């Protein structure tokens, strides 16, 4: 990110901030949608993030940390969005328009649906570390830097999140011919 642009926005230059906002939008939205799993909630979270970013930008001491800092803001906005709304628990509907569906593709859709259900049961805190680590491919240290928490905390939080996700998926899969399977119409 352009240091000069950040510095200008810190000094109250709205046009510089708008350039920053446009440049940052895609990656902020990616995190928000990854965590919240809902387009409208992600839009709201990003908008909230941009306003907070403007408000708090003068307090950012090192312009080089802008990107990591903005991840922290969007994760916090996701917390707020999840707190203020129940939309985030909604599962993104599967894309049912594609046909014909090959057997491999069917398994993939089924697998994704299981993950979606499992992920929807995690706390926002756990979702955030998973998204930063496995969607954005940040290292543990980079996630720690973004969330301003120790690397050890990231590692343990990630471990707990993955364990819970696996447990949630297994719990969903346990009853044979469960409601979710019938609803999907996927033969076992």
């Amino acid at each position, binding site marked *: 990110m352009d240091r000069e642009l950040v510095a*200008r926005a810190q000094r109250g230059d709205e046009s510089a901030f708008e350039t920053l*906002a*446009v440049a940052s939008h895609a990656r902020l939205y990616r995190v928000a949608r990854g965590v919240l799993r809902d387009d409208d909630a992600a839009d709201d979270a990003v*908008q909230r993030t941009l306003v907070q970013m403007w408000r708090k930008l*003068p307090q950012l001491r090192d312009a080089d940390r802008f990107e990591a800092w903005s991840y922290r803001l969007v994760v916090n906005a996701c917390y707020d969005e999840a707190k203020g709304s129940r939309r985030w628990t909604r599962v993104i509907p599967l894309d049912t328009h594609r046909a014909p569906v090959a057997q491999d593709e069917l398994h993939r859709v089924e697998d994704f649906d299981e993950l979606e259900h499992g992920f929807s049961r995690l706390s926002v805190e756990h979702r955030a570390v998973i998204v930063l680590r*496995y969607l954005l491919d940040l290292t543990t240290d980079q996630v720690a830097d973004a969330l301003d928490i120790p690397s050890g905390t990231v590692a343990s939080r990630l471990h707990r999140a993955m364990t819970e996700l*696996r447990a949630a998926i297994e719990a969903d899969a346990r009853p044979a011919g469960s409601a979710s399977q019938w609803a999907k119409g996927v033969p076992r």
Partner: protein
Amino acid sequence: MIDERFAARISSWLRGSDRPARQPNDNVARAMGQIHQTRQRRRWLWFLPGPRPTAGAMDEQDLDQESPPTSSQGRSVPAPIGGTTTMISATKMIGLAASLALVGALALALPANQPEGSVGPAAAPAEPAEMAPFSGTMRTLSIDDYGETVARDWGRALMDQQWTFEHDFDDERLNGMGRSRVNDHRITGSSGGPKSFTLYIENDGGSWVGTGRAYSGVNGGGWHHQTVLSGQGGYEGLTAILAADQPVQSSVLEVSGVVFTGGLPPLPEAASTDFE
């Protein structure tokens, strides 16, 4: 240890379900609409080097909207348009001189200069402390160290637990990333409270230290805290009282309180138990 195959499955799913924003430009435009009416929060230590408004970055209307700061609130002061980039500008020097003159005038007017035995102003109650109410949130980001738990006669003591909070208050003196060392005494058999704790918070401007009491409602109800903190460093001479509520299963404490000059008055002796 994280299962790499499971991690790869998660990664594949996240990427497979990744979608771009539907109307990114509209979203940015909506945010910019809000930004026009949103004031930036400057650092409380405004006299230290840092980002400053430049000519053209803030128009006069923006400056008009900036309310003048009060010392009790510790808010930032809008830097003058086209101000110098040196640490000590002429404007600041004039402000500093005016402040010193005011302090000198107040010192001369102190009751201590009055003749011994005089009555009147010396006997009058002290000026009320300068009060600055505030509100905001403390978000628990992590428990970095769970500390040590020791059994006691009355329950259990939890020593040196370390928390990280993000503070978002409308008073900059309590803002920033707070790292808190907590000693926590709880009555046995209670997953909630009551509990007593010590708290230490620090940020760029100084630190706060104090004690608090909390209880949680029965049946898994949320926490209710009251904490009294004394300022240290840059906040020397200030006291903060925080009342906080933490809803069930929430990492966010809703806090309101007041920062004031001086300390709490001493507790009075117990009142008489004789009733008319």
